[in-house]
């Protein structure tokens, strides 16, 4: 595929690795924010080829992983209603809530459907007027415009049987939260290319300046990542702390203004809980007044549910990049993709799952 295959060229990858080795004179800790980037790094085994000094820290950029337990529980409660069709993206179906996941609800008779695009959920609502269609709208800034369009479309069609369970989160506040943590070790960031395709990267400029941390907007293919890592390393080696754009072919400084304006029509900023991290101020999106009627939480009056995380799960520390999954006592034993205890073991983009799929061994001593 054009714009994919050439960024997977093994020879160029070897060259970039050689250049990186030549560039890095000291150890550096770089966080790739995005789960998609984590996926490429781990699936291609890139992190194992990096020069010994360069350590990749996997960030909180898997929207499935950071969806709060309480929200998963709400989705489970809504999906269990006989009048509801709950639609979402595939990975969201296996995220464990307090009492089970959405696949479990489906197994007990709930109507839970996988869609490729939120517009398909709107189409279900059009075709099945007798049912309440709830779209579980997870995602970062990349996905928010699509979900906004679904609400706009439903509004235009006057659908009163469509609603959204919103769990959108924003990247810049998460980066700030990582940097503010007292135990932070991250020295540079690869910003998520597709988030920036929508948002541009002006938001990262004050962060780079204030925290004196290099930020490189980076794509998702092996060469993208290697080049992004190289660019970040060069900044670190040179003592610079700028926002650079590796992913020029898809990202401009100001981003996609049409998408941003749709997002702003439908969503407003709100404080948001991040699973394993806690509440981050103004780090999430909620529906604006104008579209409040599409809020599934009020429509189905799912109040605050009693939620309970597994006590052994250190997902928070993993998502903040201060621990590796392999250091978690449950990793690979009680917690596997088959029986995930925490969200990062669920999505194939989740850090714990990516490690497990790649066969990384637990570093916890047998007791």
């Amino acid at each position, binding site marked *: 595929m054009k714009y994919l295959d050439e960024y997977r060229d093994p020879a160029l990858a*070897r060259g970039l690795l050689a250049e990186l080795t030549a560039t890095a004179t000291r150890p550096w800790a770089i966080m790739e924010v995005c789960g998609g980037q984590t996926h490429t790094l781990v699936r291609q085994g890139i992190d194992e080829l990096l020069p010994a000094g360069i350590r990749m820290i996997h960030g909180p950029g898997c929207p499935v992983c950071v969806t709060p337990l309480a929200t998963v529980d709400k989705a489970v409660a809504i999906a269990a209603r006989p009048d509801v069709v709950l639609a979402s993206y595939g990975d969201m179906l296996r995220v464990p809530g307090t009492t089970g996941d959405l696949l479990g609800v489906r197994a007990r008779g709930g109507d839970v459907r996988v869609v490729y695009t939120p517009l398909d959920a709107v189409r279900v609502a059009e075709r099945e007027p007798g049912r309440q269609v709830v779209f579980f709208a997870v995602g970062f800034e990349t996905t928010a415009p699509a979900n906004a369009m679904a609400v706009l479309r439903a509004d235009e069609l006057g659908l009163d049987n469509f609603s959204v369970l919103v769990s959108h989160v924003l990247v810049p506040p998460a980066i700030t939260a990582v940097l503010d943590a007292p135990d932070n070790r991250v020295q540079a960031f690869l910003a998520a290319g597709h988030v920036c395709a929508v948002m541009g990267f002006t938001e990262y400029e004050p962060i780079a300046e204030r925290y004196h941390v290099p930020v490189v907007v980076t794509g998702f293919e092996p060469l993208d990542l290697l*080049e992004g890592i190289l660019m970040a390393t060069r900044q670190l080696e040179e003592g610079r702390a700028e926002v650079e754009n590796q992913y*020029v072919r*898809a990202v401009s400084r100001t981003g996609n203004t049409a998408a941003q304006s749709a997002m702003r029509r439908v969503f407003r900023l709100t404080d948001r809980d991040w699973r394993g991290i806690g509440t981050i101020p103004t780090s999430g999106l909620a529906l604006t007044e104008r579209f409040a009627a599409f809020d599934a939480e009020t429509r189905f009056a799912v109040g605050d549910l009693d939620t309970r995380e597994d006590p052994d799960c250190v997902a928070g520390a993993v998502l903040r990049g201060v621990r590796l999954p392999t250091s978690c006592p449950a990793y690979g034993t009680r917690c596997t993709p088959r029986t995930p205890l925490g969200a990062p073991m669920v999505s194939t*983009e989740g850090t714990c799952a990516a490690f497990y799929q790649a066969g990384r061994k637990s570093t916890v001593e047998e007791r």
Partner: protein
Amino acid sequence: MCLGVPGRIVAIDADDPWLGTVDFDGVRRPVCLAYTPEARLGDHVIVHVGFAISRVDEEEAARTFAVLRAIPGALAGELGPER
């Protein structure tokens, strides 16, 4: 996160300029073009959950790929023996 795949716009609906068909190496899907009003037939776009979120800038792509190939170690890698 945010699986985004580059594909080429091979059709735009005559009645609805927001409705395009995007080809991904022979696989086609309707894609919402509302967020890439600048994209034209034949352009490449990055598609995420059925939406074009960005037009691929072909010139920039060519230029930056050339930069990438010009990175000192890269040529060595291309010519060097497989490890």
